[in-house]
């Protein structure tokens, strides 16, 4: 089985979010980048398939040269090789188009993405890829097994889970649950050393206009200060929730 894991290079979850150039660009100053957490769960599952079922795992990212460190981290975790599509991603459809092209050219059986990235939160890349490729698709995937060409998956639904039977080729939008948090891997020294010599190829993007454009950013308005209520005056809290906030 050939697996393609799509990696997004995103600010660490503790990052302060600021903007520059008249609020038109994200301020990268002092920001640490990581593998998008939803993608990391998927990558870890792919490594499980590699170790247990002999799958070959390729990681891919759409981004400039500065994102290669994130791909190297994925190689250190255990991916066999990496591809960087040399373009700055501006739009979910554009990214899906690039990834679909890589997926098609490489003849991958299983394509694992995170269900959304933690920067733009578009949540559309896996579905758009599946649409462009005409492959089967499971989103918000929390369990995944493959036997031959048959796949069994679970996905999160509002208030529960759904068990799905499908077949390869398959696109998955993964999230926590596809592996557990405790099974995520921190690259060890051997992994980091071997990652340096694993193949990382750079391909040029395929054409296409951006269908959408993020033109401006804005930070939420500052919040008014919290109203403190004494633990001995819970009637006041109920009064505030009922008469002021009108939520009970």
């Amino acid at each position: 089985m050939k697996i393609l894991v799509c990696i997004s290079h995103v600010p660490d979850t503790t990052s302060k979010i600021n903007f520059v150039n008249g609020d038109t660009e994200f301020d990268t100053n002092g920001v640490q980048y990581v593998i998008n957490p939803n993608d990391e769960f998927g990558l870890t599952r792919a490594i499980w398939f590699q170790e247990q079922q002999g799958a070959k795992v390729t990681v891919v990212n759409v981004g400039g040269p500065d994102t290669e460190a994130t791909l190297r981290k994925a190689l250190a975790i255990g991916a066999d090789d990496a591809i960087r599509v040399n373009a700055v991603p501006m739009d979910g459809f554009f990214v899906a188009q690039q990834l679909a092209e890589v997926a098609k050219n490489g003849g991958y059986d299983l394509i694992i993405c995170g269900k959304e990235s933690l920067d733009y939160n578009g949540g559309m890349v896996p579905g758009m890829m599946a649409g462009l490729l005409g492959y089967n698709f499971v989103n918000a995937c929390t369990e995944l097994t493959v036997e031959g060409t048959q796949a069994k998956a679970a996905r999160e639904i509002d208030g529960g889970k759904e068990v799905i039977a499908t077949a390869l080729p398959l696109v998955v939008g993964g999230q926590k649950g596809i592996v557990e948090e405790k099974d995520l891997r921190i690259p060890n020294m051997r992994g980091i050393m071997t990652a340096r010599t694993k193949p990382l190829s750079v391909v040029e993007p395929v054409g296409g206009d951006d269908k959408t454009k993020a033109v401006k950013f804005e930070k939420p308005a500052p919040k008014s200060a919290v109203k403190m209520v004494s633990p001995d005056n819970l009637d006041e809290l109920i009064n505030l929730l009922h008469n002021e906030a009108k939520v009970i």
Partner: protein
Amino acid sequence: MSVVLYAESSDGKFKKVALEVASYAKAVADALGTQVTAVTINASDASELGKYGVNKVLQVQNDALQAFNAKAYADVIQQAARQEGAQVVVFSSSTDSLYVAPLVAVALEAGMASNVVAAPVSTAPFQVKRSAFSQKAFNYTTINTAVKVLSISKNSFGIHENATSVTAEAFAPQLNEGDFATKVAAVEKASGQVSIADADIVVSGGRGLKGPENWHILEDLATTLGAATACSKPVSDIGWRPHSEHVGQTGKPVASNLYIALGISGAIQHIAGINASKVKVVINTDSEAPFFKVADYGIVGDALEIVPRLTQKLKEFKAQNS
């Protein structure tokens, strides 16, 4: 020309998000000077949608679509959108809608914006405000394609009545075998519980509750308020509560009317996941806990001691006000 929306239903009844999406579609249609068409799949009574500004309902009744199926549902919606000459197709941000919408966008060669939080800023160019960076910022996105696909953040636009005379007609989409290559084998749903996605009120617990044996205190409060129960990441990581209850940046998002945090300090990742909630209450022993900076109402104290008293007072309040 029209604005098309997918009106989600469950057991034949429209979900609350369907009414919010209908209200939103009406606002977009007014801005564009056009009409609203809703697509329903195995829902019963279409007339309810007329209350929220829907002019026309395309009703699909098809046994093959009883179980949710993203590809087949996407096929239904894109065919309806084509028939209606849709300029804009509107979805909710439920897990099902987020599953379907990108497939529809590809089929219609449409640009898509998700997490949209307000009516379009302008229609030429078509620009919407959406949340990004896990609720830590907003961005204004223009969509340049002839057809636009939007998914609306829950509880952001609200439900607005706008009574309209509505016509319903049957719609029979052309479905193919490939639509059903992904099959639902089983559904596991906790019955009798309010889901975090549907809940108006969410009560959430952190490590400050000291152990799973104390969760009945939180559950009593949730039952009294008709709320869903949730927990912080550490609590799900150490196994006190199931992962399905984990809310935050890498867990489930919460956009309820009221979010009550018990013994949660409010790490930045937690706040990111729950910040779309309208009113936030925190009860925590540590007055320096970061949650107090984002909360609307706060109590410094031990949730284990305070919550049973609060629950009792709420029961009395409910009894008086019902």
